[in-house]
């Protein structure tokens, strides 16, 4: 037996895999909160995708909704801070201006979603083109306005800060690091897990969920039993917009306290990949987002604390950009590998035309 293990270690690749496993176990508890933080905007984007596509509307425009909300939230904070003040309200570093700005950001997301809903449901434009163009519009407009505004170098309303859970909880054996991962967070990142669970239950256990899925699978049949297909689709796209906007607001109001041009960096698209990997279910999409960003968190950790041994020499020799590109690479690999086996809602992406009322 010992001889077998010795032989296993002697094979170079297997030895490296063992070293990597040991390294992950060693740094896991430290990077876990970072994984959830990195995954939060992507998970929210994926939830927007689930909402839309379960009802049969493809939404490539999530990226555009996110960047709009990120900009609007930040700039609303800039305008509101002198009016409403920035007095501390609670454990999350919330202040009146910040909270109102967050609400405004969510509303902006709903408005952009409305545009996509109108173009793809009412005008029956090609949904991929409509979504892509919403992205171009949003990136262009926010870039233009940001350029105008940043000339005055304004002060924002600050950002939400992380909650510090008591040591008694995080020091618990086995589950301590998990509690730390979910509690050592700001309000938006912490709310994701709640939203995911509620949405999962609603989508598969409620009347609304059944109707949504019916509209996404077979709209004609849904209409014959009296479901208003157009209305259900509008509603789902608009609610999805709230989630995407929350993800965008996270970037400029919780992860940082300012807006940068193109700060979403393709997270809307990565969210779509997470949705596909998670087979159009909220819990699955959330899990996929966590999986994607485990690699990034690991990459960041490797930059700071190189693992020892051969593994360290190999990983240390890679350029930094490899780790930057990792989530994008993973998205492609997973799309190429998994999509063939996961099946989207049957009427996904098909515009619906009401039966003639004769």
């Amino acid at each position, binding site marked *: 037996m010992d001889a077998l293990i010795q032989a296993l270690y002697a094979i170079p690749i297997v030895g490296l895999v063992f070293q990597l496993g040991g390294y992950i176990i060693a740094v896991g508890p430290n990077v876990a909160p970072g994984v959830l933080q990195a995954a939060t905007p992507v998970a929210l984007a994926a939830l927007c995708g689930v909402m839309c596509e379960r009802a049969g509307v493809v939404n490539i425009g999530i990226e555009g909704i996110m960047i709009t909300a990120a900009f609007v939230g930040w700039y609303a904070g800039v305008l509101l801070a002198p009016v409403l003040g920035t007095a501390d309200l609670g454990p999350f570093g919330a202040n009146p201006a910040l909270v109102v700005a967050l609400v405004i950001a969510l509303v902006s997301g709903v408005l952009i979603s409305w545009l996509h809903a109108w*173009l793809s449901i009412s005008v029956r*434009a090609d949904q991929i*083109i409509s979504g892509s163009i919403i992205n171009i519009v949003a990136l262009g407009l926010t870039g233009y306005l940001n350029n105008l505004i940043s000339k005055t170098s304004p002060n924002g309303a600050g950002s939400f800060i992380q909650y510090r859970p008591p040591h008694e909880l995080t020091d618990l054996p086995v589950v301590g690091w998990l509690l730390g991962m979910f509690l050592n967070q700001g309000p938006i990142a912490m709310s994701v897990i709640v939203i995911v669970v509620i949405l999962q239950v609603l989508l598969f256990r409620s009347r609304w969920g059944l109707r949504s899925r019916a509209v996404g699978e077979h709209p004609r049949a849904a209409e014959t039993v009296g479901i208003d297909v157009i209305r259900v689709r509008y509603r789902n796209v608009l609610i999805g917009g709230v989630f995407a906007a929350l993800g965008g607001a996270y970037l400029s109001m919780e992860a940082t306290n300012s807006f940068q041009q193109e700060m979403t960096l393709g997270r809307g*698209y990565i969210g779509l990949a997470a949705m596909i990997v998670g087979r159009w279910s909220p819990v699955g999409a959330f899990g996929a987002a966590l999986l994607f960003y485990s690699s990034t968190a690991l990459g960041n950790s490797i930059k700071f604390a190189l693992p020892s041994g051969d593994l360290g020499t190999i990983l240390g020799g890679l350029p930094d950009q490899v780790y930057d590109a990792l989530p994008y690479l993973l998205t492609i690999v997973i799309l190429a590998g998994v999509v063939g086996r996961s099946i989207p809602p049957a009427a996904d992406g098909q515009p619906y035309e009401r039966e003639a009322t004769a």
Partner: protein
Amino acid sequence: MSETASSPRLPAPGRAAQRLWSIIALPLISILLALVVGAFVIVASQLVLPGAQFNLLLPLTAYSALMEGAFGNFNAIVGTLASTAPLVLGGLSVGLAFRAGLFNIGAQGQFLLGALGAVAAGVALAGAPSVVAIPLALVAGFLAGAAWGFIPGLLKAVSGAHEVVVTIMLNYIAKAVIAAVVGGPLRQQGRSEAITPDVGNAALPIIVGSTGHAGILLAIIAVIFVGWLLFRTTLGFEIRTVGANPDAARYAGMRPRVVTIVTMSLAGGLAGLAGAIVILGVTHLMTPSFGTTVGFDSIAVALLGRTNPLGIVAAALLFGSLRSGATLMEIKAGIPVELVDVLQATILLFLVAAPVLQRLFRLRGVKSGLDTTATLTRTYGGEASVQ
């Protein structure tokens, strides 16, 4: 010339004019409406900017500075042509893929890789005679872009991964690749900042004015080539058939998977060529943050030009002049060059909402804004594009 009033048939010139109008009506209306929206944005942005004087005529100042920057004198016109050339190539890239029912959002990544290929070959051949160095550097750019287009084509054909998501991801990866290569193997020795050496003899000759490089000729040749390919060859016929109706194409014995891969590779190559002429004709070297708006403008160019090679030339001229004139607009009117992004986005928005415009302006017998999109959304998600 004797035309009876009762006859509904127009004389030949009239029919031609009517046909032309049916093609250009919607793009033209979209452009005009976008200029109006742009004017509103300019006026409204004065409200956003604290301390700015309110000036209702600012849009006029901005637009006239834009025109002056693009066409004000001979050098400005040459500069406009130089910024149009890569847009023509990029527009052809997106347009060609569109004809096959593929939405190539990844022109930006292919553009970057093409630029990287050209600069790598150019630096290696900097001392070689230009007759050898220039063609080889251009071919390197084409091949690097084609490789970057081959990946999404292959993935779509084999596993059905949608090209929109894959190409966007490849755009970000291309950025990382450039930063890694320019900061690493291609980095010029003895400089404190990461930058590549000059391409030397591989630089494209200047043929007109002070900035009019030979890439302009290359763009014209590419237009003729793509037109010939699409409308005069078997491959072009297959591309158009697969885009219009993949089932019919398969029934007719064509191989949609192969067409998908070949088209995406060709499209990538064209975008790569756009990157190559920017490197070899304009910058002559590369920094880790190299990047222009060409890739994303290409999408607008292709859609506004109705994916037709001649339409693409017209649309590329429009955006080329906007990009080229925007700097003077920023200097004279204080409007950020990103206004061009706003104009471009609005044009696209109106094109998508074409059915509404048709109803609004009572346009009959006018072609819709975007056609040949039969397979775009249909192939989204799990369904392998072409079985």
